[in-house]
């Protein structure tokens, strides 16, 4: 699950700035937390956010796939090669402070990825554009942000189409890792060249339709905002500031 998933959850219905603020707060808070317990509370918060958005299962699965390589690396670097004291876990001698450190870093990555995926899955690019347009943000900035949010699903869709076409021409995807690596060539080249060619034409079409005009666009259907949502966003900002204040106060102490 990488990309917008249509739905009617509270996060889908919320103002896009609120959903993005929740994900951003999770990100900043993750870096403010230094204890395994607090970091893992944030992972739980990320899971709660995904559940609220109705995307817990696919979100958790994708977050696991994305953060697994990081977990393995952290386990080797800190758990196996970390400093003493060590504890025996089966045949392994694991570094106790190393494992603690790995839990903090890995938890951060998992919480951030979960929050980011949830925001991506529940924020409609169209509503985000409308919200930004209503606030007077220039089209180039809204387009840049919305395109960033939609680029992965679009590339994945295009890659699937190219793969189907190449398989029809006899491309085999199974076999050894080397064979799989070789299969990347017929996928990557048309994927990149096709995307570049289409971008050229899209730039022309958007320009003619006034995208680069620079004036203020008329919002067509701005998503509704509300005082409680605005209060929540300010509250999240205050929480993040407080978390960093607490972190620096503890570092000084």
């Amino acid at each position, binding site marked *: 699950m990488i990309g917008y998933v249509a739905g009617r959850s509270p996060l889908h219905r919320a103002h896009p700035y609120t959903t993005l603020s929740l994900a951003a707060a999770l990100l900043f808070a993750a870096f403010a937390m230094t204890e395994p317990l607090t970091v893992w509370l944030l992972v739980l918060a990320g899971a709660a956010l995904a559940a609220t958005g109705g995307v817990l299962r696919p979100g958790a699965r994708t977050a696991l796939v994305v953060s697994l390589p990081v977990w393995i690396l952290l386990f080797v670097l800190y758990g196996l090669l970390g400093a003493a004291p060590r504890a025996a876990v089966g045949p392994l001698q694991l570094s106790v402070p190393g494992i603690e450190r790995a839990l903090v870093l890995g938890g951060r990555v998992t919480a951030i990825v979960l929050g980011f995926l949830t925001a991506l899955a529940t924020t409609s*690019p*169209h509503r985000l*554009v409308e919200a930004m347009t209503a606030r007077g943000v220039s089209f180039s900035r809204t*387009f840049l942000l919305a395109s960033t949010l939609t680029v992965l699903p679009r590339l994945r869709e295009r890659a699937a189409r190219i793969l189907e076409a190449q398989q029809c021409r006899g491309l085999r995807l199974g076999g050894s890792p080397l064979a799989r690596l070789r299969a990347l060539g017929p996928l990557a080249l048309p994927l990149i060249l096709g995307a570049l060619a289409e971008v050229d034409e899209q730039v022309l079409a958007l320009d003619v*339709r006034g995208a680069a005009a620079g004036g203020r666009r*008329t919002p*067509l259907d701005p998503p509704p905002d509300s005082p409680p949502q605005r209060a929540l966003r300010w509250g999240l900002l205050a929480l993040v500031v407080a978390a960093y204040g607490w972190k620096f106060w503890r570092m000084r102490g």
Partner: protein
Amino acid sequence: MTPRVTLTGVTFTYPGGVRPAVRGLSMEVAAGEIVAVAGAAGAGASTLLLVATGLAPRLVGGSLAGERAIGARRSGIVFARPWTQLTGLCSTVRDEVAFGPAAAGRPLAEVAAAASRALHRLGIAHLAERDPAHLSGGELQRVVVAAALALEPELLALDDPAAELDPTAADALYALMPSLAADGAAVLLATPDVERAARVATRALVLEEGVIVADGRPGDVLPPTEVGALARAAGCPAPYPLDVPALLGRLTPDAGRRAHDTTDGPPAGSGPSTSGTAR
């Protein structure tokens, strides 16, 4: 009539191009004209459209020599591949069509009215609430044309606009062009579909290797269709009819009208179809 675009000795070369894509172009397109641009693939028809709308070299890059005067205050362009012309940011067809007027900062009521007019003109009002990402190629092409019309362009460049359309929808799109011209737009139409172009165009240009080799009435200058070749072989005087309704119309006006009624689908727009007019 007011010229929407005037080119005088224009030569354009793409960035990194060894030779010009178009050379020594001199032409004028006035309000109310429908100019068909024909030529083999690579002859420079698409480039001519980019030059005439001011997109080349401003966005395309490359170099332009000669004089170009664009009198149109608003231009629209439609390419053959509709999926490359979507904003990718709109969740409904209505918003996609309204994008241009909204970008101009027009009041919401005006934007909605312009989008609604364009949707009705293309006969796709029923698609208004659909997601553009889930439309067929033909539906998408009509959405893209509607998006261009919503801009109320004074110069409309169409690059093979019926490439994704079925014959009925293609007929309907071509039938719309005279009404656009009647509203004061200049239409520049690059297409390999000589038969349909000949039905609606008021003038035709033929390009060969980037040079205009013929400029005149469609029946005189467009490459002969099979019907045209038959008419010529049968000893019909020039200009030769380019499609069956025109040939029948030449022979017997009543038969021509009947043939036109059966071959053309219902026009999508409010404009009168000129199909089957005797040439």
